[in-house]
C-alpha cells in the first residue's frame, strides 16, 4: 500500500457533531437510581418466570410481560468475567494507555440473573471471586452512586 502516499489526498471537511439527547431513564431505572441514593440495590422481577434483572428492566424478554415486582438485593455479588484494562477510550475514540491498569468485571449480584459491568478495586481479579458493592450515597451524579466493587473479606 506504499503507493497510496503518492496519491493526492481527497479534500476533507472536519465537521463537529455534538448532539445532546435528553433521554428519559424510564420508571424502572428511576427506582434503581433512587434506591442507590438510599444505599439499596433494587432489581426487577418477572412475575411469570421469576427472572431478576439488575439493573432493572421493565419487560421480561422471555415472558413478554411487565417485570413489575421489585426485590431488594444483597450487596454481595460474584465475578462472572473480568479484564485488566491497559487502555481507555479517549474523546476522539482512540484507545489511549492508562497510567495504571484497571479491572473491569461483569458481576452478578446474589439473587440476580443479569450482570452489571463495573470497576473492581484492587489489582487482580478472577472469575468466581466474591465481591461487594461500594455505594457512594453522597455522589452528586446518579451514575456515580454505584461506585465500584471490592473483594469480600
Amino acid at each position, binding site marked *: 500500500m506504499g503507493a497510496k502516499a503518492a496519491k493526492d489526498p481527497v479534500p476533507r471537511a472536519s465537521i463537529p457533531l455534538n448532539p445532546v439527547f435528553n433521554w428519559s431513564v424510564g420508571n424502572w431505572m428511576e427506582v434503581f437510581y433512587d434506591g442507590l441514593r438510599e444505599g439499596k440495590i433494587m432489581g426487577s422481577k418477572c412475575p411469570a418466570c421469576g427472572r431478576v434483572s439488575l439493573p432493572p428492566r421493565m419487560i421480561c424478554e422471555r415472558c413478554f410481560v411487565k417485570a413489575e415486582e421489585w426485590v431488594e438485593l444483597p450487596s454481595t455479588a460474584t465475578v*462472572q468475567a473480568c*479484564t485488566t484494562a491497559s487502555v481507555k477510550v479517549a474523546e476522539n475514540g482512540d484507545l489511549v494507555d492508562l497510567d495504571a491498569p484497571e479491572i473491569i468485571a461483569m458481576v452478578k449480584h446474589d439473587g440476580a440473573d443479569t450482570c452489571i*459491568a463495573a470497576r473492581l478495586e484492587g489489582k487482580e481479579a478472577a472469575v468466581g471471586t466474591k465481591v461487594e458493592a461500594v455505594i457512594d450515597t453522597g455522589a452528586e451524579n446518579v*451514575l456515580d452512586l454505584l461506585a465500584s466493587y471490592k473483594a469480600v473479606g
Partner: protein
Amino acid sequence: MDKEVAIIAYAQLPYEADNNMSREVMVLKATRAAIEAAGLKREDLDTVITANNDYNDGRTISNMRLVEPAGSWHKNESKVEMDGTFGVLYALTRILSGDHDIALVVGESQASVYGGILPGIMMLDPTFDRQRWLLNEVSAAALQASAYMAAAGVSAEQIAAVAAKNLDNAALNPFALRSLKGADAKKVLASRPLYSPITELMTAPRCDGACAVVMASAKAAAKVEKPVWIKGVGFSHDSYVTERSLDSMGSLKLAADACYRQAGIEDPASQIDLAEVHECFAHEELMAYEALGFCEPLQGGVFFDSGATRLDGKLPVNASGGALGANAEYATGLARIIEAAMQIRGDAGRHQVKGVKTAVAHGQTGICAQENIVYVLGGE
C-alpha cells in the same frame, strides 16, 4: 432451499486504513465491479439493499446519498443498519417472493471518517452503561473472552494462535489490510495490550472498504456460469450484553441449527468443507466452532489444536484471514459470503482450498455478537 436463489457475482475493494476516497466513489467502485462481473447493467437490477450505519457515516438515513453509486435510482431499495449479511437475507426474501429476479447488496463503511471505537459505544444502553465509560466493543469482548476461557479452559496462547493463523492466511489475500506471514502466538501476545486477554493483533482492524454481491432467482441464474446457491439461512437475536451468558454464542447456535435444518446438514463437521466466520476478536472464532457444530460445546480450543481449521486442515476456517484481516464494518460479514462463494467457484487465488463444495458463511452485529446469521452455500 434447493437452487432457488444464487449468488452470481461479487466484488470487493482492497481494505485500507484510509482508502482516500469519498464514500460515493468507494460504493460506486464496488457496485459497478459487481454488476459488470455479473454481465449486467444497472437497468437489470430489480432491487437494491445497502448495509451501512447512520452513526458511522454521520448523517441520518445514510443511504440517501447512495442513490447514484448504489444504482438504486427509482428502484425498489432499502438499507439495513446491520452487517451486509443481513442485507443478503433481505435480498433473498425479496427474490423468493417471486417479484424480483436480480438483487444487488452492498455493504460499506469508512473508519477513517469518524471516531475510532465511538460508533460501537453508541450500541450501549444510554441510561447506564454508555455513561459509565467501562464497556466498549473491545472491553466487552474481553469480558466475553474471560467468561469463555473460564468455562472452556482455553488459554490466551490458544486465542493468540487463532489470530496468528488468520493473519498468516491474510498474507495470501490481496484484499486484506492486516496480515503477518508466519505469525505465531508469541508475536500476537507481544502486540499492544488492550483489555486482557485481548491484544491489538487479536482484534479485527476497523478500516475503510466496500463489497457487493449480485443475487439472482433460479430463472435468472440459469444463464450464469458457476452460480453459488444459497442452501440455507438462519438468524437469531440474543439478550443485551450484560443480560446473557457470555461463555457461549447462544444466538449463533440457534442461527446455525435453523440454517442446517434448511440446508439438510446433519453433521456439519463432516458435511461442511470450509467456513468463513465473522470473528471480531480471535476468541470468537473458537466460540463459533462450537456454535456452528464443528465440535462439541467447550471443545473449541481442543478442536483448534487439532489443526482442523488451518488452511490445510479438514475444515479450514477463515482461509481469507477473516475479519482479523480487515474489518470494514457492515461489509465484513458480507465479505465472508463473498469469500465462501469464491472458494466454491475455485476463484480464491492463493488462499484457494481444494474441493470446496459446501461452505458456511457467518455474519454478526452488535456488542459481543448479539445477533448472528449463518448461510450454507453450495455449487452445482
